[in-house]
């Protein structure tokens, strides 16, 4: 299988604080890979470094064999990496529809836009109902749908998802995970960061455990689900 994404020995610091000290992650094309870990372990930072919105001190990122280590963020998106950031980050004063439109900024194909919109609305019928509403007035769950839908509109071959289930009711959490699975089945490779470690492991093929800026364990997700150390630390015993 081809590698969709490869992160090699990544170091990132915020001012004097070292957030990542040599992270290496491989994501096979068409798979779902997850990163779990405690608060502050560096999961979001890894995603942000891949997307190019935080500067890397050293290390390499390759995307389908192309080096994107120092590629500007907006070009990385155009190349095919979409990113649902932590905390949704809606454009609150833009309508739902405008939020979706803005995600096709790099492409201007009307037909393709209509098709992507169709896909997003079929996954999230609620967004279709609310398309004229300002994004800032959506409920938390609806905003999460919009965040995922918006990222789908950027048409990435790889989608980075940062805690898509955060703050959602248990039913919605299930729904979000099923949606991620569907997006994956539509041909998108997924790199998923989650606090909800059990669900993340159940829905993914391969997993990395991050601890204060380094990878402390990795393996097929089914294996990690049974790993006693992982069980104790992240699955509540």
């Amino acid at each position: 299988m081809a590698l969709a994404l490869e992160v090699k020995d990544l170091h990132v610091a915020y001012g004097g604080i070292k957030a990542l000290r040599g992270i290496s992650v491989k994501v096979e094309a068409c798979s779902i890979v997850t990163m779990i870990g405690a608060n502050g372990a560096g999961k979001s930072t890894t995603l942000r470094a891949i997307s190019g919105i935080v500067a890397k001190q050293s290390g390499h990122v390759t995307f389908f064999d192309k080096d994107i280590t120092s590629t500007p963020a907006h070009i990385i998106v155009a190349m095919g990496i979409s990113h649902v950031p932590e905390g949704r980050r809606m454009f609150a004063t833009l309508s739902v529809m405008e939020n979706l439109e803005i995600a096709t900024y790099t492409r201007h194909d009307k037909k393709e836009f209509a098709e992507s919109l169709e896909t997003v609305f079929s996954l999230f019928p609620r967004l279709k109902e609310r398309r004229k509403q300002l994004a800032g007035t959506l409920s938390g769950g609806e905003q999460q749908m919009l965040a995922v839908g918006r990222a789908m509109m950027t048409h990435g071959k790889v989608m980075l998802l940062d805690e898509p289930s955060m703050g959602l009711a248990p039913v919605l959490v299930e729904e979000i995970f099923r949606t991620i699975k569907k997006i994956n089945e539509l041909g998108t490779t997924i790199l998923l960061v989650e606090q909800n470690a059990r669900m993340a492991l159940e829905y993914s093929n391969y997993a990395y455990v991050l601890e204060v800026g380094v990878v402390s364990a990795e393996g097929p997700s089914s294996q990690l689900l049974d790993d006693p150390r992982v069980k104790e630390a992240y699955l509540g015993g």
Partner: protein
Amino acid sequence: MELTTFFQQLINGLQLGAIYALIALGYTMVYGIIRLINFAHADFLMVGAFAVYFFASFILTLTNAIPPIILFILGLIVALVAGALIAELSNRLAYKPLRYKPRLSALITAVGVSMFLEYFFASLPFIGPSFRAFPDLLKPVSFVVGGVYLNNIQLLDIGLAIVLMILLTFIVNRTMMGKAMRAVSQDKDAAKLMGINVERTITFVFLIGGALAGAAGILMAMTYPRIYPNMGILPGLKAFVAAVLGGIGNIPGAMLGGFLLGIAEIYATSYNSLLGEGIAFAILIIVLLVRPQGLLGEKQSEKV
């Protein structure tokens, strides 16, 4: 006040307000996207006025046969382009290198850019610090409607400003670039994740804001046909007050604030000319005390 006087002042106020509104838009758009109060913005209109001055003088030395309307349209294009270029030049050379530095640095730099432009223009041998008579691009024509005196320049000021504002509103609300502008002003990182080139969007804002200042420059020069390097300072300050009055960062707010301030200033002047000079700043103080977010601005809860 008599009714005709009332309307006379109203039209004068709209004329002045149109110019304030055009300038205020530049302040508010730049503030909206990079949270910078661009003190040099007022000087862009001076640059626009001088560009038209030299252009028109040059054309008029070549030929006197050019129809005034053509001369005006060419002059307007020169003003828009000159305003846009000087604005983007300041962005590129002065503000961009400070983009991710503390905001105070850019603010102080803006004061520096403003003073630089004023003194640089004053020091140029072919400009100098003193007044220059601005040539008549259009022949002034006056007429009376129901006892109210109007002239073509007045109608041009108001009409052109309104056309430009409609155009701007269309760009901001309907075009992809306009949507990108709004997205970038809300959340730069999220905008990048949508594939938006943030720096290009900021450039676009400077170009548009500068062009509007250039338009204000040519209109001001046609209305008060004496130009000089410091000509932007006072209207710039008042337009800034207009932007704050409307709600800084808010585009319709800048338009509204500009017109309101122009009208207030004319009525106040008709009462007492010193009051007219001071009314803008009195309004600024009142707004800051009573409604700091401005008429159309939202309460500041967003992080900046």
